[in-house]
Protein backbone atom coordinates (compact mmCIF):
# COMPACT_ATOMS: atom_id res chain seq x y z
CA UNK A 1 0.00 0.00 0.00
CA UNK A 2 1.09 3.63 -0.45
CA UNK A 3 3.52 2.40 -3.11
CA UNK A 4 6.20 1.41 -0.62
CA UNK A 5 6.71 -1.90 -2.40
CA UNK A 6 6.39 -0.41 -5.89
CA UNK A 7 8.86 -2.00 -8.24
CA UNK A 8 9.60 -4.86 -5.86
CA UNK A 9 7.02 -7.15 -7.42
CA UNK A 10 8.39 -6.46 -10.88
CA UNK A 11 11.89 -7.23 -9.67
CA UNK A 12 11.21 -10.22 -7.44
CA UNK A 13 7.88 -11.61 -8.61
CA UNK A 14 4.93 -13.42 -7.11
CA UNK A 15 6.97 -15.70 -4.87
CA UNK A 16 8.42 -12.84 -2.87
CA UNK A 17 5.84 -10.05 -3.06
CA UNK A 18 2.35 -11.28 -2.23
CA UNK A 19 -1.03 -9.54 -2.32
CA UNK A 20 -3.39 -11.13 0.17
CA UNK A 21 -7.15 -11.18 0.76
CA UNK A 22 -8.34 -8.63 3.31
CA UNK A 23 -7.79 -10.30 6.62
CA UNK A 24 -5.14 -8.83 8.87
CA UNK A 25 -5.45 -11.64 11.36
CA UNK A 26 -5.14 -14.07 8.47
CA UNK A 27 -2.12 -12.66 6.74
CA UNK A 28 -0.30 -11.81 9.97
CA UNK A 29 -0.85 -15.39 11.09
CA UNK A 30 0.36 -16.74 7.77
CA UNK A 31 3.48 -14.57 8.00
CA UNK A 32 4.18 -15.73 11.57
CA UNK A 33 3.84 -19.34 10.48
CA UNK A 34 6.17 -18.76 7.55
CA UNK A 35 8.73 -17.21 9.89
CA UNK A 36 8.50 -20.22 12.22
CA UNK A 37 9.11 -22.47 9.23
CA UNK A 38 12.32 -20.67 8.25
CA UNK A 39 11.44 -17.71 6.00
CA UNK A 40 12.09 -14.04 6.82
CA UNK A 41 8.74 -12.41 6.08
CA UNK A 42 8.02 -8.71 6.01
CA UNK A 43 4.35 -8.27 6.86
CA UNK A 44 2.84 -4.94 5.88
CA UNK A 45 -0.15 -3.40 7.63
CA UNK A 46 -1.82 -0.69 5.58
CA UNK A 47 -1.65 1.29 8.78
CA UNK A 48 -0.85 0.06 12.27
CA UNK A 49 -4.43 0.89 13.24
CA UNK A 50 -5.44 -2.27 11.36
CA UNK A 51 -2.83 -4.28 13.25
CA UNK A 52 -5.34 -4.33 16.07
CA UNK A 53 -7.28 -6.86 14.03
CA UNK A 54 -4.15 -9.04 14.10
CA UNK A 55 -2.73 -8.11 17.47
CA UNK A 56 -3.07 -11.60 18.92
CA UNK A 57 -0.78 -12.91 16.18
CA UNK A 58 1.74 -10.12 16.80
CA UNK A 59 1.85 -10.43 20.58
CA UNK A 60 0.75 -13.91 21.59
CA UNK A 61 2.40 -15.64 18.67
CA UNK A 62 5.26 -13.56 17.29
CA UNK A 63 6.41 -11.81 20.46
CA UNK A 64 6.11 -14.59 23.00
CA UNK A 65 7.01 -17.76 21.12
CA UNK A 66 10.78 -17.61 21.48
CA UNK A 67 10.45 -17.28 25.24
CA UNK A 68 7.67 -19.85 25.56
CA UNK A 69 9.70 -22.39 23.60
CA UNK A 70 12.86 -21.63 25.63
CA UNK A 71 14.54 -20.39 22.46
CA UNK A 72 13.82 -23.37 20.22
CA UNK A 73 11.33 -21.56 17.95
CA UNK A 74 12.45 -18.29 16.39
CA UNK A 75 10.05 -15.86 14.71
CA UNK A 76 12.28 -13.63 12.54
CA UNK A 77 9.44 -11.48 11.23
CA UNK A 78 9.14 -7.77 10.54
CA UNK A 79 5.78 -6.05 10.85
CA UNK A 80 5.91 -2.66 9.16
CA UNK A 81 3.60 0.10 8.06
CA UNK A 82 2.54 3.69 8.74
CA UNK A 83 1.88 4.61 12.36
CA UNK A 84 0.44 7.64 14.11
CA UNK A 85 -1.26 10.73 12.76
CA UNK A 86 -1.51 11.42 9.06
CA UNK A 87 -3.70 14.23 7.63
CA UNK A 88 -7.49 14.20 7.68
CA UNK A 89 -7.92 10.51 8.40
CA UNK A 90 -9.59 10.80 11.82
CA UNK A 91 -9.74 8.55 14.84
CA UNK A 92 -9.50 5.06 13.39
CA UNK A 93 -6.51 5.87 11.17
CA UNK A 94 -4.38 8.08 13.40
CA UNK A 95 -3.41 6.19 16.55
CA UNK A 96 0.23 5.84 17.59
CA UNK A 97 1.17 2.32 18.69
CA UNK A 98 4.69 2.99 20.00
CA UNK A 99 3.56 2.65 23.63
CA UNK A 100 1.43 -0.45 23.07
CA UNK A 101 4.09 -2.46 21.22
CA UNK A 102 6.93 -0.96 23.28
CA UNK A 103 5.27 -2.45 26.34
CA UNK A 104 5.80 -6.07 25.27
CA UNK A 105 8.82 -8.20 26.05
CA UNK A 106 9.76 -10.36 23.09
CA UNK A 107 9.28 -7.58 20.52
CA UNK A 108 11.74 -5.08 19.21
CA UNK A 109 10.14 -1.81 18.17
CA UNK A 110 11.80 0.73 15.89
CA UNK A 111 10.60 4.14 14.76
CA UNK A 112 12.60 5.76 11.94
CA UNK A 113 12.63 9.48 11.17
CA UNK A 114 15.07 10.13 8.32
CA UNK A 115 15.74 8.18 5.10
CA UNK A 116 18.93 6.85 6.67
CA UNK A 117 16.91 5.62 9.66
CA UNK A 118 14.28 3.99 7.43
CA UNK A 119 16.78 2.15 5.27
CA UNK A 120 19.17 1.16 8.01
CA UNK A 121 16.52 0.10 10.50
CA UNK A 122 14.55 -1.95 7.95
CA UNK A 123 17.64 -3.87 6.94
CA UNK A 124 18.66 -4.39 10.55
CA UNK A 125 15.12 -5.51 11.39
CA UNK A 126 15.00 -8.09 8.61
CA UNK A 127 18.39 -9.45 9.65
CA UNK A 128 17.35 -9.62 13.30
CA UNK A 129 16.14 -13.06 14.39
CA UNK A 130 13.52 -11.49 16.67
CA UNK A 131 10.08 -10.18 15.73
CA UNK A 132 10.42 -6.46 14.99
CA UNK A 133 7.65 -3.88 14.72
CA UNK A 134 8.71 -1.00 12.46
CA UNK A 135 6.57 2.09 12.95
CA UNK A 136 6.86 4.30 9.87
CA UNK A 137 5.05 7.57 9.22
CA UNK A 138 2.85 8.28 6.23
CA UNK A 139 3.63 11.98 6.10
CA UNK A 140 7.36 11.25 6.08
CA UNK A 141 7.14 9.02 2.98
CA UNK A 142 7.13 12.11 0.80
CA UNK A 143 9.91 14.02 2.61
CA UNK A 144 13.41 13.91 1.08
CA UNK A 145 16.49 13.67 3.32
CA UNK A 146 20.21 14.00 2.61
CA UNK A 147 21.94 10.64 2.64
CA UNK A 148 25.67 10.13 3.07
CA UNK A 149 27.70 7.89 0.75
CA UNK A 150 27.95 5.41 3.57
CA UNK A 151 24.18 5.43 4.11
CA UNK A 152 23.63 4.74 0.43
CA UNK A 153 25.91 1.73 0.45
CA UNK A 154 24.46 -1.73 -0.02
CA UNK A 155 24.87 -3.18 3.46
CA UNK A 156 24.30 -0.05 5.49
CA UNK A 157 22.41 -0.77 8.69
CA UNK A 158 21.38 1.32 11.67
CA UNK A 159 21.80 -0.77 14.81
CA UNK A 160 18.59 -1.45 16.70
CA UNK A 161 18.72 -0.05 20.22
CA UNK A 162 20.92 3.00 19.53
CA UNK A 163 19.62 6.57 19.58
CA UNK A 164 21.21 9.36 17.53
CA UNK A 165 22.01 12.93 18.51
CA UNK A 166 20.65 14.90 15.57
CA UNK A 167 21.71 18.26 16.97
CA UNK A 168 24.08 19.04 19.82
CA UNK A 169 23.13 21.56 22.48
CA UNK A 170 23.80 22.63 26.04
CA UNK A 171 20.65 24.06 27.59
CA UNK A 172 17.94 21.40 27.21
CA UNK A 173 17.52 17.86 25.93
CA UNK A 174 14.67 17.21 23.51
CA UNK A 175 13.94 13.50 23.08
CA UNK A 176 11.66 12.34 20.31
CA UNK A 177 10.94 9.66 17.70
CA UNK A 178 9.54 9.66 14.17
CA UNK A 179 8.06 12.82 12.62
CA UNK A 180 8.22 14.96 15.79
CA UNK A 181 12.04 14.76 15.54
CA UNK A 182 11.71 17.16 12.61
CA UNK A 183 9.49 19.46 14.68
CA UNK A 184 12.12 19.40 17.47
CA UNK A 185 14.80 20.50 15.02
CA UNK A 186 12.58 23.33 13.77
CA UNK A 187 11.91 24.41 17.36
CA UNK A 188 15.65 24.23 18.08
CA UNK A 189 16.35 26.54 15.13
CA UNK A 190 13.84 29.10 16.41
CA UNK A 191 15.15 28.87 19.98
CA UNK A 192 18.78 29.19 18.86
CA UNK A 193 17.97 32.75 17.75
CA UNK A 194 17.02 33.48 21.36
CA UNK A 195 20.24 31.96 22.64
CA UNK A 196 18.77 28.64 23.78
CA UNK A 197 20.73 25.67 22.41
CA UNK A 198 18.70 22.45 22.31
CA UNK A 199 20.19 18.99 22.06
CA UNK A 200 17.86 16.86 19.93
CA UNK A 201 17.91 13.11 20.50
CA UNK A 202 16.29 10.88 17.86
CA UNK A 203 15.42 7.67 19.73
CA UNK A 204 15.27 5.53 16.53
CA UNK A 205 14.40 2.50 18.66
CA UNK A 206 11.51 2.40 21.12
CA UNK A 207 12.34 -1.04 22.48
CA UNK A 208 15.05 -1.68 23.60
CA UNK A 209 15.27 2.04 24.39
CA UNK A 210 18.72 3.65 24.44
CA UNK A 211 18.21 5.44 27.73
CA UNK A 212 21.99 5.80 28.21
CA UNK A 213 22.19 8.35 25.41
CA UNK A 214 19.31 10.30 26.95
CA UNK A 215 20.93 10.14 30.41
CA UNK A 216 24.28 11.38 29.10
CA UNK A 217 22.49 14.27 27.45
CA UNK A 218 20.48 15.19 30.56
CA UNK A 219 23.66 15.08 32.65
CA UNK A 220 25.03 17.71 30.25
CA UNK A 221 21.98 19.97 29.86
CA UNK A 222 20.10 19.47 33.16
CA UNK A 223 16.70 19.84 31.45
CA UNK A 224 14.46 17.35 29.65
CA UNK A 225 11.50 17.68 27.30
CA UNK A 226 10.05 14.58 25.64
CA UNK A 227 8.07 14.97 22.41
CA UNK A 228 5.78 12.34 20.85
CA UNK A 229 2.71 12.15 18.65
CA UNK A 230 1.00 9.51 20.79
CA UNK A 231 -1.36 9.99 23.71
CA UNK A 232 0.13 11.06 27.06
CA UNK A 233 -1.01 8.32 29.39
CA UNK A 234 1.39 5.36 29.65
CA UNK A 235 3.31 6.75 26.67
CA UNK A 236 6.89 6.87 25.43
CA UNK A 237 7.49 10.14 27.31
CA UNK A 238 6.15 8.62 30.52
CA UNK A 239 8.61 5.74 30.18
CA UNK A 240 11.55 8.07 29.55
CA UNK A 241 10.67 10.14 32.62
CA UNK A 242 10.37 7.03 34.80
CA UNK A 243 13.74 5.69 33.67
CA UNK A 244 15.47 9.05 34.15
CA UNK A 245 14.19 9.11 37.70
CA UNK A 246 15.49 5.59 38.31
CA UNK A 247 18.96 6.35 36.98
CA UNK A 248 21.96 8.62 37.64
CA UNK A 249 20.65 11.49 35.51
CA UNK A 250 17.92 12.34 38.04
CA UNK A 251 20.41 14.16 40.23
CA UNK A 252 21.37 16.39 37.33
CA UNK A 253 17.86 17.65 36.56
CA UNK A 254 17.32 21.30 37.50
CA UNK A 255 13.59 21.15 36.80
CA UNK A 256 10.91 18.47 36.35
CA UNK A 257 10.85 16.91 32.89
CA UNK A 258 8.01 18.03 30.61
CA UNK A 259 6.15 15.83 28.14
CA UNK A 260 4.77 17.19 24.85
CA UNK A 261 2.27 14.71 23.44
CA UNK A 262 -0.78 14.34 21.23
CA UNK A 263 -4.05 15.49 22.82
CA UNK A 264 -5.79 12.88 24.97
CA UNK A 265 -8.74 12.42 22.56
CA UNK A 266 -9.51 10.20 19.55
CA UNK A 267 -8.24 12.16 16.57
CA UNK A 268 -10.97 14.35 15.07
CA UNK A 269 -11.32 14.89 11.34
CA UNK A 270 -11.89 18.64 10.80
CA UNK A 271 -8.53 20.27 10.08
CA UNK A 272 -8.80 22.96 12.71
CA UNK A 273 -9.52 20.31 15.35
CA UNK A 274 -6.82 17.96 14.08
CA UNK A 275 -4.13 20.67 14.08
CA UNK A 276 -4.83 21.28 17.74
CA UNK A 277 -4.49 17.60 18.62
CA UNK A 278 -0.99 17.11 17.21
CA UNK A 279 2.11 18.59 18.90
CA UNK A 280 3.25 21.63 16.93
CA UNK A 281 6.59 23.43 16.87
CA UNK A 282 5.08 26.16 19.05
CA UNK A 283 4.11 23.56 21.70
CA UNK A 284 7.71 22.35 21.86
CA UNK A 285 9.02 25.91 22.18
CA UNK A 286 6.49 26.57 24.92
CA UNK A 287 7.55 23.43 26.82
CA UNK A 288 11.25 24.33 26.57
CA UNK A 289 10.63 27.82 27.90
CA UNK A 290 8.49 26.41 30.69
CA UNK A 291 11.15 23.99 31.86
CA UNK A 292 13.92 26.62 31.55
CA UNK A 293 11.67 29.10 33.32
CA UNK A 294 12.12 31.78 30.63
Amino acid sequence: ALQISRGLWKKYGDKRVIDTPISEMGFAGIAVGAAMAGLRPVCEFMTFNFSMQAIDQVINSAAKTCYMSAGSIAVPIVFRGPNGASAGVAAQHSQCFAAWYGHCPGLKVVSPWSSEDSKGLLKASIRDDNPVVMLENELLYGVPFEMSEQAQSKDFIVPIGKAKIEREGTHVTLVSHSRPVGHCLEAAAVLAKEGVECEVVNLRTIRPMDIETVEASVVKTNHLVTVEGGWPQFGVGAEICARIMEGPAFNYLDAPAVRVTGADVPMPYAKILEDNCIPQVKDIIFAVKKTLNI
Partner: protein
Amino acid sequence: PPLPQDFPVPEEKPQFPGASAEFADRLEFIQPNVISGIPVYRVMDRQGHVLSPDQDPQLPQEAVLKLYRTMTLLNTMDRILYESQRQGRISFYMTNYGEEGTHVGSAAALDASDLVFGQYREAGVLMYRGYPLDLFMAQCYGNASDTAKGRQMPVHYGCRERHFVTISSPLATQIPQAVGAAYAIKRSDGNRAVICYFGEGAASEGDAHAGFNFAATLECPIVFFCRNNGYAISTPTSEQYRGDGIGERNPEKGFQKRGLEG
Protein backbone atom coordinates in the same frame (compact mmCIF):
# COMPACT_ATOMS: atom_id res chain seq x y z
CA PRO B 1 -23.34 -63.13 31.98
CA PRO B 2 -25.26 -60.61 29.76
CA LEU B 3 -25.72 -61.68 26.15
CA PRO B 4 -24.56 -59.52 23.21
CA GLN B 5 -28.18 -58.94 22.18
CA ASP B 6 -28.84 -57.28 25.57
CA PHE B 7 -26.76 -54.29 24.51
CA PRO B 8 -28.52 -51.96 22.08
CA VAL B 9 -26.37 -51.41 18.97
CA PRO B 10 -26.27 -47.81 17.81
CA GLU B 11 -27.55 -47.10 14.31
CA GLU B 12 -24.93 -47.36 11.57
CA LYS B 13 -24.31 -43.61 11.34
CA PRO B 14 -21.44 -41.45 12.58
CA GLN B 15 -22.13 -40.77 16.23
CA PHE B 16 -20.43 -37.48 16.87
CA PRO B 17 -22.63 -34.62 18.12
CA GLY B 18 -24.35 -32.56 15.45
CA ALA B 19 -23.53 -34.97 12.61
CA SER B 20 -26.10 -35.65 9.92
CA ALA B 21 -23.75 -37.38 7.49
CA GLU B 22 -23.66 -41.00 6.40
CA PHE B 23 -20.72 -43.37 6.35
CA ALA B 24 -18.85 -43.88 3.08
CA ASP B 25 -16.69 -46.85 2.26
CA ARG B 26 -14.78 -45.15 -0.56
CA LEU B 27 -12.28 -42.33 0.05
CA GLU B 28 -13.37 -39.58 -2.35
CA PHE B 29 -12.57 -35.91 -2.01
CA ILE B 30 -15.31 -33.40 -2.73
CA GLN B 31 -13.82 -31.44 -5.62
CA PRO B 32 -13.94 -27.66 -5.56
CA ASN B 33 -16.14 -25.96 -8.17
CA VAL B 34 -18.23 -29.09 -8.68
CA ILE B 35 -21.22 -27.27 -7.17
CA SER B 36 -22.23 -24.67 -9.74
CA GLY B 37 -22.87 -21.13 -8.59
CA ILE B 38 -25.98 -20.03 -6.76
CA PRO B 39 -28.48 -18.88 -9.41
CA VAL B 40 -28.81 -15.11 -9.80
CA TYR B 41 -32.38 -13.83 -9.43
CA ARG B 42 -33.63 -11.15 -11.78
CA VAL B 43 -37.06 -9.78 -12.63
CA MET B 44 -36.11 -7.89 -15.79
CA ASP B 45 -33.70 -8.73 -18.56
CA ARG B 46 -31.00 -6.30 -19.58
CA GLN B 47 -33.39 -4.50 -21.94
CA GLY B 48 -35.83 -3.85 -19.07
CA HIS B 49 -38.49 -6.38 -20.09
CA VAL B 50 -40.16 -8.20 -17.17
CA LEU B 51 -39.43 -11.90 -17.74
CA SER B 52 -42.30 -13.46 -15.77
CA PRO B 53 -45.42 -11.34 -15.16
CA ASP B 54 -46.08 -13.05 -11.81
CA GLN B 55 -42.69 -11.73 -10.55
CA ASP B 56 -43.56 -8.13 -11.39
CA PRO B 57 -43.93 -6.32 -8.03
CA GLN B 58 -46.41 -3.86 -9.62
CA LEU B 59 -44.83 -0.88 -7.95
CA PRO B 60 -46.95 2.28 -7.99
CA GLN B 61 -45.68 5.13 -10.15
CA GLU B 62 -44.65 7.31 -7.19
CA ALA B 63 -42.57 4.47 -5.69
CA VAL B 64 -40.72 4.01 -8.94
CA LEU B 65 -40.16 7.73 -9.25
CA LYS B 66 -38.78 7.91 -5.73
CA LEU B 67 -36.32 5.14 -6.54
CA TYR B 68 -35.22 6.83 -9.75
CA ARG B 69 -34.98 10.28 -8.18
CA THR B 70 -32.85 8.96 -5.31
CA MET B 71 -30.50 7.14 -7.66
CA THR B 72 -30.03 10.23 -9.79
CA LEU B 73 -29.54 12.50 -6.78
CA LEU B 74 -26.98 10.10 -5.34
CA ASN B 75 -25.05 9.95 -8.58
CA THR B 76 -25.06 13.74 -8.85
CA MET B 77 -23.90 14.21 -5.26
CA ASP B 78 -21.16 11.65 -5.87
CA ARG B 79 -19.82 13.53 -8.87
CA ILE B 80 -19.69 16.81 -6.97
CA LEU B 81 -18.10 15.38 -3.84
CA TYR B 82 -15.61 13.27 -5.79
CA GLU B 83 -14.51 16.41 -7.60
CA SER B 84 -14.20 18.13 -4.24
CA GLN B 85 -11.86 15.43 -3.05
CA ARG B 86 -9.71 15.65 -6.18
CA GLN B 87 -9.51 19.41 -5.63
CA GLY B 88 -8.34 18.93 -2.06
CA ARG B 89 -11.43 20.45 -0.46
CA ILE B 90 -12.23 17.27 1.41
CA SER B 91 -9.57 14.71 2.22
CA PHE B 92 -11.46 11.58 1.29
CA TYR B 93 -14.52 10.36 -0.61
CA MET B 94 -16.03 7.10 -1.75
CA THR B 95 -18.43 7.07 -4.68
CA ASN B 96 -21.40 4.76 -5.08
CA TYR B 97 -21.17 4.49 -8.86
CA GLY B 98 -22.93 1.46 -10.25
CA GLU B 99 -24.42 0.47 -6.91
CA GLU B 100 -27.22 3.02 -6.73
CA GLY B 101 -29.83 0.43 -7.67
CA THR B 102 -28.78 -1.98 -4.92
CA HIS B 103 -28.99 0.78 -2.30
CA VAL B 104 -32.46 2.06 -3.15
CA GLY B 105 -33.87 -1.37 -3.98
CA SER B 106 -32.83 -2.86 -0.66
CA ALA B 107 -33.82 0.30 1.26
CA ALA B 108 -37.28 0.22 -0.34
CA ALA B 109 -37.78 -3.38 0.78
CA LEU B 110 -37.03 -2.50 4.41
CA ASP B 111 -39.36 -1.00 6.98
CA ALA B 112 -38.35 2.53 8.01
CA SER B 113 -37.39 1.30 11.48
CA ASP B 114 -35.27 -1.66 10.39
CA LEU B 115 -31.71 -1.16 11.60
CA VAL B 116 -28.99 -0.62 8.97
CA PHE B 117 -25.33 -1.47 9.49
CA GLY B 118 -23.28 -0.40 6.49
CA GLN B 119 -19.63 -0.52 5.54
CA TYR B 120 -19.05 2.79 3.73
CA ARG B 121 -20.68 2.50 0.31
CA GLU B 122 -24.37 2.62 1.19
CA ALA B 123 -25.19 6.32 1.04
CA GLY B 124 -28.18 5.57 -1.20
CA VAL B 125 -29.87 3.70 1.64
CA LEU B 126 -29.61 6.75 3.87
CA MET B 127 -30.66 9.03 1.05
CA TYR B 128 -33.71 6.89 0.33
CA ARG B 129 -34.68 7.27 3.99
CA GLY B 130 -34.71 11.04 3.56
CA TYR B 131 -31.37 12.18 4.99
CA PRO B 132 -31.05 15.75 3.73
CA LEU B 133 -28.43 16.72 1.20
CA ASP B 134 -26.98 19.48 3.35
CA LEU B 135 -26.25 17.01 6.15
CA PHE B 136 -24.42 14.70 3.71
CA MET B 137 -22.34 17.70 2.62
CA ALA B 138 -21.82 18.96 6.19
CA GLN B 139 -20.48 15.56 7.23
CA CYS B 140 -18.05 15.44 4.32
CA TYR B 141 -16.83 18.95 4.97
CA GLY B 142 -16.67 18.46 8.75
CA ASN B 143 -18.20 21.88 9.28
CA ALA B 144 -20.22 23.40 12.11
CA SER B 145 -23.50 22.00 10.73
CA ASP B 146 -22.21 18.43 10.91
CA THR B 147 -24.16 16.39 13.46
CA ALA B 148 -20.91 14.50 14.15
CA LYS B 149 -19.14 17.76 15.03
CA GLY B 150 -16.37 17.36 12.47
CA ARG B 151 -14.99 14.23 14.14
CA GLN B 152 -15.32 11.68 11.36
CA MET B 153 -13.78 11.25 7.92
CA PRO B 154 -16.08 11.97 4.96
CA VAL B 155 -18.79 9.41 4.07
CA HIS B 156 -18.89 8.21 7.69
CA TYR B 157 -22.56 9.15 7.98
CA GLY B 158 -24.84 8.15 10.83
CA CYS B 159 -28.42 8.97 11.74
CA ARG B 160 -30.16 7.69 14.83
CA GLU B 161 -33.60 8.93 13.72
CA ARG B 162 -33.32 7.05 10.45
CA HIS B 163 -31.89 3.91 12.07
CA PHE B 164 -28.61 4.07 10.14
CA VAL B 165 -25.72 3.13 12.39
CA THR B 166 -22.71 5.46 12.05
CA ILE B 167 -20.15 4.18 9.59
CA SER B 168 -16.91 2.86 11.07
CA SER B 169 -13.78 2.38 8.97
CA PRO B 170 -12.36 -1.02 9.95
CA LEU B 171 -13.78 -3.56 7.52
CA ALA B 172 -16.33 -6.15 8.54
CA THR B 173 -16.43 -5.09 12.19
CA GLN B 174 -20.07 -4.17 11.59
CA ILE B 175 -20.93 -7.81 10.83
CA PRO B 176 -20.80 -9.29 14.33
CA GLN B 177 -22.21 -6.02 15.66
CA ALA B 178 -25.20 -6.29 13.33
CA VAL B 179 -25.76 -9.84 14.51
CA GLY B 180 -25.60 -8.70 18.13
CA ALA B 181 -28.14 -5.98 17.42
CA ALA B 182 -30.44 -8.48 15.71
CA TYR B 183 -30.12 -10.76 18.72
CA ALA B 184 -31.00 -7.87 21.06
CA ILE B 185 -34.04 -7.09 18.93
CA LYS B 186 -35.12 -10.72 18.97
CA ARG B 187 -34.78 -10.87 22.75
CA SER B 188 -36.85 -7.74 23.21
CA ASP B 189 -39.51 -9.10 20.81
CA GLY B 190 -39.05 -6.01 18.64
CA ASN B 191 -40.79 -6.31 15.31
CA ARG B 192 -37.75 -5.20 13.39
CA ALA B 193 -35.06 -6.71 11.25
CA VAL B 194 -31.43 -5.79 10.76
CA ILE B 195 -29.67 -5.50 7.44
CA CYS B 196 -25.89 -5.69 7.27
CA TYR B 197 -24.06 -4.48 4.15
CA PHE B 198 -20.44 -5.33 3.35
CA GLY B 199 -18.22 -5.76 0.32
CA GLU B 200 -16.82 -8.99 -1.07
CA GLY B 201 -13.37 -7.97 0.17
CA ALA B 202 -14.56 -7.42 3.72
CA ALA B 203 -16.08 -10.90 3.63
CA SER B 204 -12.50 -12.20 3.85
CA GLU B 205 -12.13 -10.77 7.35
CA GLY B 206 -12.33 -13.09 10.33
CA ASP B 207 -15.17 -10.98 11.73
CA ALA B 208 -17.33 -11.98 8.76
CA HIS B 209 -16.92 -15.67 9.45
CA ALA B 210 -17.62 -15.18 13.15
CA GLY B 211 -20.64 -12.99 12.46
CA PHE B 212 -22.22 -15.46 10.02
CA ASN B 213 -21.68 -18.31 12.41
CA PHE B 214 -23.31 -16.49 15.28
CA ALA B 215 -26.27 -15.39 13.15
CA ALA B 216 -26.93 -19.02 12.31
CA THR B 217 -26.44 -20.42 15.81
CA LEU B 218 -28.35 -17.64 17.56
CA GLU B 219 -31.02 -17.57 14.83
CA CYS B 220 -31.11 -13.81 14.40
CA PRO B 221 -33.50 -11.72 12.27
CA ILE B 222 -30.81 -10.40 9.96
CA VAL B 223 -30.24 -9.99 6.23
CA PHE B 224 -26.62 -10.05 5.07
CA PHE B 225 -26.18 -8.01 1.90
CA CYS B 226 -22.87 -8.57 0.16
CA ARG B 227 -21.98 -5.99 -2.49
CA ASN B 228 -19.62 -7.63 -4.93
CA ASN B 229 -18.14 -5.05 -7.27
CA GLY B 230 -15.14 -7.07 -8.35
CA TYR B 231 -12.53 -5.15 -6.35
CA ALA B 232 -11.47 -4.74 -2.73
CA ILE B 233 -9.38 -1.56 -2.56
CA SER B 234 -7.18 -2.69 -5.48
CA THR B 235 -7.29 -6.47 -5.12
CA PRO B 236 -9.48 -8.14 -7.74
CA THR B 237 -11.91 -10.89 -6.76
CA SER B 238 -9.68 -13.43 -8.51
CA GLU B 239 -7.15 -12.84 -5.73
CA GLN B 240 -9.72 -12.32 -2.98
CA TYR B 241 -11.43 -15.70 -2.99
CA ARG B 242 -11.94 -19.01 -4.83
CA GLY B 243 -15.30 -20.35 -5.84
CA ASP B 244 -18.43 -18.71 -7.17
CA GLY B 245 -18.70 -16.03 -4.52
CA ILE B 246 -19.40 -15.16 -0.94
CA GLY B 247 -22.83 -16.80 -0.80
CA GLU B 248 -21.46 -20.12 -1.90
CA ARG B 249 -19.21 -20.44 1.12
CA ASN B 250 -20.13 -22.77 3.94
CA PRO B 251 -23.46 -23.91 2.60
CA GLU B 252 -24.08 -25.82 5.82
CA LYS B 253 -24.27 -22.62 7.88
CA GLY B 254 -28.03 -22.72 7.78
CA PHE B 255 -28.67 -19.59 5.74
CA GLN B 256 -31.14 -18.98 2.97
CA LYS B 257 -29.28 -17.39 0.10
CA ARG B 258 -29.84 -15.67 -3.18
CA GLY B 259 -27.66 -13.97 -5.78
CA LEU B 260 -28.97 -10.75 -7.32
CA GLU B 261 -27.99 -8.77 -10.34
CA GLY B 262 -28.41 -5.03 -9.77
